[in-house]
């Protein structure tokens, strides 16, 4: 075979190890990256030296007792309304699959109404419940109302927030839980029924534990969304983080500084939740059973 310049064939006496493999060079990446970094630095510099942002005020308020209390309320609202949402969601999802058509349609109606209206509207609605029912009580027909209270003493900004956020979360959680229940192979419940378990035992011991894998990841998302949605309760003086910040800046007019404080807190909490969700999903990942088994066997050995 004749040696020509156009052939890639190895030259006589040449070893492959003498050749170096060079990936495609992207020369444009370096200047572009530098340009973006420069723009970002410029922006941060502009923020840092902006005379309209008093960084001292930001630092001072970041751990102010009022703000910390607001953070506490925001966390409490998130946790409590998600708990309400999860319980309501499981119950609604199970009812939706019930053989009783009245219960099934009731569950559908609940999901329809609470997913179909903005949560902001629901919050304001619950806050103004007193306009619709001035008193709340347990009426006993023909006798008297045995237990009556003024609606406005029960419905504070906080309870209205809890009702609004919890009931709204329940409607979304119901769909998430239902997706999880549907994802479990029907053969699983059939086998459980065949060994003599009741429908309730089957649901608790077999179906729900398996549905969890499908339910947990989107539930984590819901928690993170809820953390930020809870800021909406500022419109009904929910005494959460944003409400507190608004109260403070309405007095000292450091609007931007307090919004920065609020944002720092939200982003910190969201980061923690994201890390938690990541850890939880790793535990529920399909490989989990293999690892937990080997750990169990390691313990036995």
């Amino acid at each position, binding site marked *: 075979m004749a040696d020509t310049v156009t052939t890639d064939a190895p030259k006589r006496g040449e070893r492959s190890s003498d050749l170096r493999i060079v990936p495609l060079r992207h020369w444009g990446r370096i200047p572009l990256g530098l340009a973006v970094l420069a723009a970002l630095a410029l922006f941060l510099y502009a923020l840092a030296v902006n005379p309209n942002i008093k960084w001292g005020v930001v630092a001072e308020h970041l751990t102010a007792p009022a703000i910390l209390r607001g953070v506490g309320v925001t966390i409490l609202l998130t946790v409590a309304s998600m708990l309400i949402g999860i319980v309501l969601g499981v119950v609604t999802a199970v009812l939706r699959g019930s053989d009783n058509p009245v219960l099934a349609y009731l569950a559908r109606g609940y999901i329809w109404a609470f997913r179909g209206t903005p949560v902001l509207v629901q919050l304001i609605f619950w806050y103004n419940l007193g306009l619709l029912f001035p008193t709340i009580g347990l009426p006993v027909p023909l006798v008297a109302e045995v237990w009556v209270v003024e609606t406005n003493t029960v419905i504070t900004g906080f309870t209205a927030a809890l009702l609004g956020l919890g009931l709204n979360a329940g409607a979304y959680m119901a769909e998430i839980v239902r997706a999880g229940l549907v994802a479990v192979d029907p053969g699983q419940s059939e*086998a459980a029924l*065949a*060994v003599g*378990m009741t429908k309730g035992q089957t649901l608790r011991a077999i179906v729900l534990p398996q549905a969890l894998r499908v339910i947990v990841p989107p539930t984590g998302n819901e928690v993170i969304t809820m953390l930020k949605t809870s800021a909406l309760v500022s419109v009904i003086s929910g005494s959460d983080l944003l409400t507190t910040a608004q109260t403070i800046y309405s007095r000292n007019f450091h609007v931007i500084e307090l919004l920065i404080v609020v944002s720092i807190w939200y982003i910190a909490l969201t980061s923690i939740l994201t890390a938690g969700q990541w850890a939880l999903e790793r535990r529920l990942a399909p490989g989990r059973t*293999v690892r937990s*088994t080997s750990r169990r066997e390691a313990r036995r050995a």
Partner: protein
Amino acid sequence: MLEVIDVRKRFGTTEILKGVDLRVERGSVVCLLGRSGSGKSTLLRCVNHLETIDGGQILIDGRYIGYERRGDRLFEIREREIARRRSEIGMVFQRFNLFANLTAWENVALAPARVRRLAAGQARSRAMDLLDRVGLADKAHLYPNQLSGGQQQRVAIARALAMDPKLMLFDEPTSALDPELVAEVLAVMLDLAHDGMTMIVVTHELGFARKAADRVVMMDDGVIVEDAPPSVVFHHPAHASTRAFLAHWADHSAGTEKK
């Protein structure tokens, strides 16, 4: 011990069972053969009330599984009572249906603990005994997805046996298995048959029917067309559909599997 009398079952407008009569004596093994769609699986599922029936009666030791007779009507009974009666019938499914969230021994121990309220330690040691009986004592701590199909099906048999059933129903127990795994499951079933378990087996394994069955029952289009000892059915089939069925599945059993 099992009496099926003129049982009818419809799904929508299609009639799946068109009046089925079948008697199974205690300790006997009945193999149910038939083309797919002939109603064999539906009949099994009616026996333990996984399906309700539209007519006729099914009695086990003189009692209905899902009904109670008052006058000339059969009223469906409460779920808890059905579950209790159903626990006396073991069922093995084509697709194993082992509980995916539980290990092998937990699969076997669950129903005795939850339904029979056996103490945890007792349920566990019984589960271990049963796994040993199906040759899987060393796999007790593995999850279903870590077991082969044949091993899963043997665990499923142990799970059914854990409730001390009077009657075992097998719904095509080897149809979802790779050919080389069929034998281990059939061996466990043969053992059971020799130990005197009352069994109804829906299967295409003619070899198993020949070896283990006291009677072979052939279903076609929702009715029973043949009911006789295997030697009679295999050598002198009375019905044309039986001959066609045997010809088809004899090839399969001989190892020349049709794709």
